[in-house]
């Protein structure tokens, strides 16, 4: 009799635990769905859909060893074709260098050797703390899954603090921590972690601009969390969504424009 009571109690307890867990995961899934929606919105707004985008970028890199360096770059983007072209205009010694992405290929052009070399979105941009992928559209919802989120404050903004883990090993950083505003779903800060979960880089997006239907950071700050004192600031100006001629996204253009 006593054994039967114990058995029943164990079964009831087990059922409660399973039910409780199920309810909790259902609630978690619901919450994550809300954050997922926000991330999809962030991704969608960072692309230019059917339109083109052009801007002038001023990249200021601070390095305790090398000092402060400024690079001015003209950027052209056509997200629907996975294309972008970037032409370096300053400093003078690097004028003529450029990047061209077409689909999965990314080339770097050096006018001194008149040669294109393959590079990758994961590579750093011109020895700065920015990566080539920082100049393309975001895809958080596609590449990452949400592992945890909390609500918090960043300055005067109420934010969701979201922890993401990569869904595959194609992305540069396996773990991310995002600060997204609750009011208008803007990413204000991103911490990027290594596979060993060590903070490697912090990206800050203090201001945004609406360009056509898209919203993109007007200013980006990247702080290297491993090398002390290394940071890069990127400011966007002369932003435009006017159609860009097809020939801009060709190797011939990069060769020709630099002559």
């Amino acid at each position, binding site marked *: 009799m006593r054994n039967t009571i114990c058995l029943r109690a164990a079964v009831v307890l087990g059922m409660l635990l399973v039910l409780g867990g199920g309810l909790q995961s259902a609630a978690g899934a619901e919450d994550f769905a809300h954050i997922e929606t926000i991330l999809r919105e962030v991704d969608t707004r960072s692309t230019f859909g059917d339109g083109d985008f052009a801007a002038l970028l001023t990249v200021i890199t601070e390095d305790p060893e090398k000092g402060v360096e400024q690079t001015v770059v003209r950027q052209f983007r056509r997200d629907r074709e996975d294309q972008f072209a970037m032409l370096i205009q300053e400093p003078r010694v690097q004028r003529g260098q450029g990047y061209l992405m077409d689909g999965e290929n990314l080339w770097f052009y050096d006018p001194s050797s008149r040669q294109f070399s393959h590079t990758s979105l994961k590579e750093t941009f011109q020895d700065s703390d920015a990566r080539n992928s920082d100049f393309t559209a975001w895809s958080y919802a596609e590449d990452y899954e949400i592992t945890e989120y909390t609500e918090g404050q960043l300055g005067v903004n109420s934010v969701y603090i979201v922890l993401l883990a990569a869904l595959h090993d194609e992305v540069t*950083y396996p773990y991310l921590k995002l600060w997204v505003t609750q009011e208008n779903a803007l990413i204000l800060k991103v911490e990027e972690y290594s596979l060993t979960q060590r903070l490697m880089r912090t990206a800050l997006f203090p201001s945004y601009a609406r360009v056509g239907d898209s919203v993109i950071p007007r200013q980006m700050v990247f702080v290297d969390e491993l090398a002390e004192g290394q940071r890069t600031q990127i400011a966007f100006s002369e932003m435009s969504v006017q159609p860009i001629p097809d020939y801009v996204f060709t190797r011939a253009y990069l060769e020709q424009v630099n002559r």
Partner: protein
Amino acid sequence: MRTVLKTAVRSVFRQKRRSLLLAGAIAFGMLMITLMNGFTEGMLTNVRDNLSHALGGHVFVSGQEITETGRVVSRIDFDDRLQTLLETNSAEIASITRRSQTFGTVVFGSRQSAQMLYGVDFQAEERLRTSVAVTAGSLEAVMEDDQAIALPDSLAQRLGVELGETVLIRLDTVTGQRNVGEFWVRAFIEDQAELGMSAAFGHRAYVNTLLNLPSDSYQSLNLFLHDLFAADKMADQFRDVLPLRPVGEDGDDQAAAFGFGPFGQQQAPEPWDGIRFTIATINDIMEPIEAVVLVLDRLSLGVFAVLLVIIVVGITNTFRMIVLERTKEIGTMRALGMQRPTVRRIFLAEAAFLGLFGGVVGLGLALGAMTVVSRLTVAEPGLQFFLAQGRFTFQLVPQVVLLHFAILTFVCLASAYWPARSAADLPPIKALGGHL
């Protein structure tokens, strides 16, 4: 025969100055060809040794597999066929190294520098323990901690790192994800920056963790052989047994075999299942260097040929003059009953004597020059790849030296043959009268 030799030697010493000039020309030829050959042979050996040491072996085996996303990842797991091959050839293998490697950025404070990092099994790599020159700390200290590292001297100086401090290494996993390792500096080693191959050494298990590989996997298997010249034969055996990676169009597979490939970043030329191997030998990278040495050898042979022509002309003219000068003497010898072949042999022996004497002197001078030059220490970084511990080394192949002697003697004999024959053919009466 004794009379012939005696007469020949006496004739050589009779005109000392002329004989010295002739022997000097021959000696110069021998000196040049011996020096050049000794230099190129020594240089080849040095380059081979330096490369073997820098790359860590004579035969290089690397493995690649394709991930689900189509990336080529460098990796070797336990393989029965590979193990059997190693056991079968164990008598010829002096040592085996199983390493992982990555090109990362070492960060210390605000300073950072790119650096090749090898993940090694210190216990198993006795050759590494005995060949690496430790300038501070010890490899035993490195072996004690999983996260310990031996850094090249030059890198430590650049970063300002002291023993016992911690450095970070920023690197990519085999699939290209960013990762960071924390290493404790336990030793500084003399690097091979002058060979263009500076490397830091850490524990393979920890490096594998950072590369996102299982701790017992590795990326390259290098074999040091007892006989370096057996490398190609052994590589062929491995190629016959192991599944090979399809040959790429861009030569990436060859680079990967030596650990130079952009691991984890390549797209497969055509897909395959499981791990495929790439096998290379030290001779594969020696080919272009050997081609350069061959050109040097050909050049020195050309110089030798020019010198031989000069020697031929010199000896022929000199012996014609000798015959003119000794016409009466030849007549007297013939009148006293000396036969024509004996007269001919006297002149030929004189030429052979000159050739041998010049050759020996040339060889002696070359050996002297080699001894002096090989004692000089050369600090020029660009030359270190061709030197042994900063010094030129010369290697003489006895068969080649003998061949050069034979060529010189033959040339001397051939040059003197016609004057010797005309001397032998002189009628005694005419010769006694001093007429040819």
